[in-house]
């Protein structure tokens, strides 16, 4: 009998494959922090070049960087289906994501058409390669709630990139897409909710029960939530042609769906069987609290147009969602994935016994992870004040940069221990 599609137990890809993504990501976090610290005046409105540049340093350079690397690692485990031509896909998408994000940031900051153009080409290559590979893998995947969530997230990413490319061509002055405002709105909501949030939802179904031994998410929720949120996003994007009442109902349902996910996650975590202190858990809880705050800020804007039209509102919402929610969850995940992979590859390469190599917990010092969590928390709190007192940006950017540097040092320390014990990185 030939090996059926969907059943793959191939060994994990080599250590350096996901790590190149994980070790690059903090550098973009540092870049975003420097932009915040250097130009507090520019933080008064969401449309300034600096804010657009730092937004994409965060969404592409940090979040997408980690998420692409993590998906390449995870799909074989959760879906039984690795990406085709994995090594080539990893190399091309990593290099083009790094250069493309830098070019797009340069485009925003200088307004030069050539920079936008190279950003569009490089990011186009990056995501075309990744998305074709991911779609191939997902088409063969074993069905399940996580795979279902990832499928919608990948669809959300595809729409985000298409819209982003159109918007970048517009900024470069090469093409004027129709309905610009709706296109920007759709780009933002598919990017942040369709891609980032749905990916976190899909992955949470798997890792929340696994890390802390909680009960599983109720199947009644996990089966339909990602698909429902995605359908609501489509309706949300079509809001300009919907009757206003319908658009309001769609928005209310979106908010309710997100809150349902948060409530389920916090409830499961409160029933966890493993009660040891855990930095990743703290990061998840901070992320979930920020998600609640995002929805609250957004609801206030629906009821109070003066707030919705203020400069502060979108900046506050973006800070809560990107910094407080997405960056926290991703940072927390790195503290599980990287130490585990370091241990796993060391054990497999050396065929070592448990006593002779460091455990997962020895890979990154607990105190340093805690310290970095505190820095991240302080940075988040300071950032929340920036939309109201832009001068806080100097302090907020400074602490965020420090937090990102410590994150980087922590991840590097796992690689250093791996190599020091005789692991072969490449």
């Amino acid at each position, binding site marked *: 009998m030939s090996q059926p599609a969907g059943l793959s137990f191939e060994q994990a890809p080599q250590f350096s494959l996901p790590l190149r993504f994980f070790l690059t990501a903090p550098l973009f976090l540092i870049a975003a922090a420097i932009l915040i610290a250097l130009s507090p005046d520019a933080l008064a409105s969401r449309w300034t070049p600096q804010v657009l540049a730092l937004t994409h340093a965060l969404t592409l350079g940090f979040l997408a960087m980690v998420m692409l690397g993590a998906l390449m690692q995870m799909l074989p*485990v959760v879906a039984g289906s690795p990406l085709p031509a994995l090594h080539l896909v990893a190399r091309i998408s990593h290099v083009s994501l790094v250069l493309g994000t830098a070019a797009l940031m340069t485009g925003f900051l200088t307004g030069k058409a050539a920079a936008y153009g190279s950003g569009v080409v490089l990011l186009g290559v990056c995501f075309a390669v990744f998305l074709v590979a991911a779609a191939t893998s997902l088409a063969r995947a074993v069905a399940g709630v996580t795979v279902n969530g990832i499928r919608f997230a990948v669809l959300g990413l595809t729409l985000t990139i298409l819209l982003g490319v159109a918007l970048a061509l517009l900024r470069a002055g090469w093409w004027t897409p129709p309905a610009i405002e709706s296109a920007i709105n759709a780009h933002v909501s598919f990017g942040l909710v369709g891609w980032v949030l749905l990916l976190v939802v899909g992955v949470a179904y798997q890792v929340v029960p696994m890390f802390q031994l909680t009960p599983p998410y109720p199947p009644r929720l996990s089966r339909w939530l990602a698909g429902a949120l995605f359908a609501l996003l489509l309706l949300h994007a079509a809001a300009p042609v919907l009757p206003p009442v319908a658009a309001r109902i769609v928005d209310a349902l979106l908010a309710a769906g997100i809150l349902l996910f948060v409530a389920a996650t916090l409830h499961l975590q409160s029933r966890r069987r493993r009660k040891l202190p855990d930095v990743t858990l703290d990061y998840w809880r901070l992320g979930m609290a920020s998600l609640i705050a995002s929805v609250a800020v957004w609801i206030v804007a629906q009821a109070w147009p003066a707030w919705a039209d203020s400069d502060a509102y979108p900046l506050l919402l973006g800070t809560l969602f990107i910094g407080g929610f997405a960056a926290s969850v991703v940072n927390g995940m790195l503290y599980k994935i990287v130490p585990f992979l370091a241990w796993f590859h060391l*054990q497999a390469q050396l065929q070592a016994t448990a006593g002779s190599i460091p455990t997962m917990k020895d890979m990154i010092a607990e105190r340093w992870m805690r310290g970095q969590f505190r820095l991240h928390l302080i940075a988040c709190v300071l950032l929340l004040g920036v939309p109201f007192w832009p001068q806080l940006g100097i302090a907020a950017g400074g602490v965020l940069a420090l937090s990102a540097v410590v994150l980087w040092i922590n991840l590097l320390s796992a690689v250093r221990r791996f190599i020091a014990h005789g692991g072969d990185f490449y």
Partner: protein
Amino acid sequence: MNTILDFLGSDHHACDDLFASAEAAVAQKNWDSAREQFGRFQAAMAHHFTMEETLLFPAFESRTGMSTGPTQVMRMEHAQMRDLLQGMQDAVAAANQNSFLGLSETLNMLMQQHNLKEENMLYPMSDRVLGSERESLIRAMQASGSQDET
């Protein structure tokens, strides 16, 4: 309990529960209880591995002709887990909390992703390919359990 997925899947959860109790006892430095809980966890794991390695995997291999594929990777991961369990046993005997918790965190990650692969892929596939043999296989696994406990 008439599928392999149900039977061995719920055994995974039973092992998880014993794991959590043993780890909690170590976290509280309640060493007497820790040794007892860990002993039960270790025995449950050993029994689970034995059921898979002596009953399920051979049946799967002879039905599918795949003896170097999935089951080989699973056996390898069992060896890694056995090794971690041995380390944990030494740590609990020496009342070494740090060592135990480092190993248990590692074991949890390895064990959970191993179980995931079995529950998502290997067990459902075994249920499909074993056909009529399935019932007798589950009975044999149940019987191996009652022997162990005597």
